[in-house]
C-alpha cells in the first residue's frame, strides 16, 4: 500500500506502471489510465471505461496542483503534524498573521501589557491590522522596528506571562 495526501485527506492505494500506462487500485476499484503529455496539460485515457480526462498540472517541489473538470486538487506526500508545538507557544508571542509593514509599536520592552492591548499595528495592502496581546504580562522582547517589512508568521513580540 502506498499513501498520498489528496486535498488534505490521506489516501491509500496500489499502483503499477508500464511505460505510460498506470494501473491504480483505490477503494477496491481498479482502473488503468494511459497518460499523454501536451505541455502543461495531460490527457488521461481510461480505455475500459471509455473516459478521457484533461488535466492541467503544476508541480512545486513535492506538491502537485491539478485542475480537472471543475475541481482544483492538491496532491502531496504525507505531512507530519508539527502544529501542536506552535499552539502551545501562541499564548505569549505575537506573530504576523500576514505579510505587511510595521506601522506602529505601542509598547517598549519591559512594559506591562493587558490582555487585549494592541501591541503592534501592521499595515497590509493598505489596511491597518491591530495585533493584540492574548495575555496579561510584560513585553520580553520586540523583534521588529517601525517600518520593517515582515513576512507571514514571523515572530514579532514575546510577552512574559510571569507564572
Amino acid at each position: 500500500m502506498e499513501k498520498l495526501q489528496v486535498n488534505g485527506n490521506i489516501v491509500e492505494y496500489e499502483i503499477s506502471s508500464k511505460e505510460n500506462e498506470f494501473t491504480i487500485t483505490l477503494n477496491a476499484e481498479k482502473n488503468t489510465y494511459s497518460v499523454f503529455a501536451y505541455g502543461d496539460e495531460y490527457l488521461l485515457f481510461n480505455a475500459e471505461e471509455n473516459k478521457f480526462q484533461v488535466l492541467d498540472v503544476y508541480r512545486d517541489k513535492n506538491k502537485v496542483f491539478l485542475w480537472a473538470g471543475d475541481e482544483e486538487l492538491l496532491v502531496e506526500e504525507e505531512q507530519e503534524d508539527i502544529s501542536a508545538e506552535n499552539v502551545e507557544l501562541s499564548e505569549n508571542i505575537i506573530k504576523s498573521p500576514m505579510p505587511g509593514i510595521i506601522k506602529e509599536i505601542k509598547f517598549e520592552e519591559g512594559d506591562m501589557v493587558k490582555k487585549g492591548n494592541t501591541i503592534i499595528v501592521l499595515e497590509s495592502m493598505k489596511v491597518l491590522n491591530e495585533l493584540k496581546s492574548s495575555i496579561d504580562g510584560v513585553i520580553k522582547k520586540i523583534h521588529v522596528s517601525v517600518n520593517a517589512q515582515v513576512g507571514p508568521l514571523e515572530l514579532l513580540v514575546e510577552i512574559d506571562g510571569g507564572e
Partner: protein
Amino acid sequence: MRKIKKVLVANRGEIAIRIMKTLKLLGIGAVGVYSEADKLSKHISYADEAYHIGEPEALKSYLNMERIIDVAKKANCDAIHPGYGFLAENHIFAKMVEDNGLIWVGPPHDCMRNLGDKINSRIIAQKANIPTTPGGTIEDLDKAHELADKLGYPILIKASAGGGGKGMRIVHDSKDLEESIKIARKEAQAAFSDPTVYIEKYIEDAHHIEIQFLLDKFGNGLYFPERECSVQRRYQKIIEESPSPTIDRHTAQEIGQAAILIAKTAGYYSAGTVEFIYDKKEKKYYFLEVNARIQVEHPVTEEISGVDLVALQIDIAEEKPLEISQNELNLRINGHAIESRIYAEDPDNNFMPSIGKIEHYREPTGNGIRVDSGFFKGSEVLIHYDPLIAKLIVKAPNRTMAIRKMYAALSDYHIAPVKTIIPLLKNIFQHEKFVNGDYNTRFIETYAADLFNTKKDSKYVSEAIVMFNYLKHKKHQAEVDEYSQSLQPYWDTIGYWRG
C-alpha cells in the same frame, strides 16, 4: 473640440492595461509609468513608452504628483488618465494637471473636491432632493456618542475621503466607539491623506446598487442599467452584476434619473458612478457617494451595453458631445453580465494576502468571457499594492446562463502556487441563495459555513494520484536523460573530427 494624441496612464496593473488597450484602438499614444518594484510588471509592455517614477512605496511613485507631471511633459503627453485608486480622485492632482497645460481625463477638479468629500457630497444629494442615509459628522467624542446613540447601534464610521472600505469601521457597541474612530482616522490618513471620518446608520438588509453615468460638457447625460455589488468582504466588492436581481425596472429608472440629477447638480462631466444603498425591506434607496472615476467594475456595464467607457471618457475630455440618446442606449442593452474579482488572498485563512510569484497561470477563454488581468506567468504579487490579479467578466443572454458561464470560467482559471479567492467565488456561484438572487451585503458572513473551508469529495482522486506518480517517474527519467545527454557532445565532437 481639442485632440488628444498621447496619454500618460498614471496607474499600474489591470486598469493601466485596460486603458492602454482603448488608447490603441483610438490611435492615441500610451505612456506608462512604473515603480522600482514594477519594472518587470505586465502593464509596461502595453505602453508605447514607459518611465520609472520612483520607489516601490506608492507615496514615492504612483502617488508622486510632481514626478508624474514631469514625466507627462517630458514625454510630450497632452493628457493624463488616472485609472482608479492612487491619484484618480485627488482634486489637487487634477488641478495640477490642468495648471500644467495638460488635459485631465476625468471630472472637473472643483467638482471632484466637492464630491470627494463624502460629507459634502451628501449635502449635494440633499440639494437635488435625493434621500441620504441618516448620519452626520464627528465634532467631538461626546457629540459622536450622542449621534450614535440616536441612530442606534450598529453604526458605521466612514472616511470622508474614502472608498473601497478603507477607513471604514462597523461599531456594535458604544464602548468601542472611541477606539474605532481612532483606527478609522489612521487608516483614512494612511490611504487618503485626510483623517476626517463621519458616522452613518447601518442598514441591516442593505443592497449596494450603483449607477454608471456619462455626462458631456454640453449637459447631455446617459445612465446605464444598475450594477448590484452586494457581495462584499471587508466592505470591498468581490462580485458585481448587471442588471440587479433585487430591484425592478421601474426602480432602476428612478435611481438612474436620480444619479443624473445629482451629477448635474454637482457640475460633473466625464464618466462616473453614483452609489446607493437599497433597503429591500423598506423598498427605499439612499444616496451613498459619487465615485468620480472609472470604477473597477465598469466592464459589467460595457458588456451589456456594448460601449467602451474609456473611449467615451476620452471623447468627453476632447470636448465632443455624446452621440447617442438615452432611448438609443436603452435599446442597446441586452443580456446579463457578472464580474468576479480575482484577489490573491487565502479565503480560508481570513483573506490573508498571498504574495509571491505566479508560477502557473492559465486564463479562461471563450464566447462572452473577458479577462482584464494585470499578470502573467512569472509575475509577482507585490506587497506594496492591492492584491487584485484580474477581473473575470462574463456575458450571457440571461442571469442563469451567466452564473453557469462564470462557474465554468472560474474552473478554467488556473493560478498557482499563489492562493486566490477562486474557490470562494465558485462556492458563491453554486450557492442556492445567490443563484436565486436572494442576497444582500451580509451574504458572505451569513453563509460563511457554506462558503469557507469546504472540502468536497473529489471525483478525480485516481486521476490525481496517477498524475503524481507519472510526474515523479518523469522527473526521475529526465535526470537519467540529462546524464546520458551530457555525454552527447563528446560523440558529436568525435564525429566531426572523423568527418
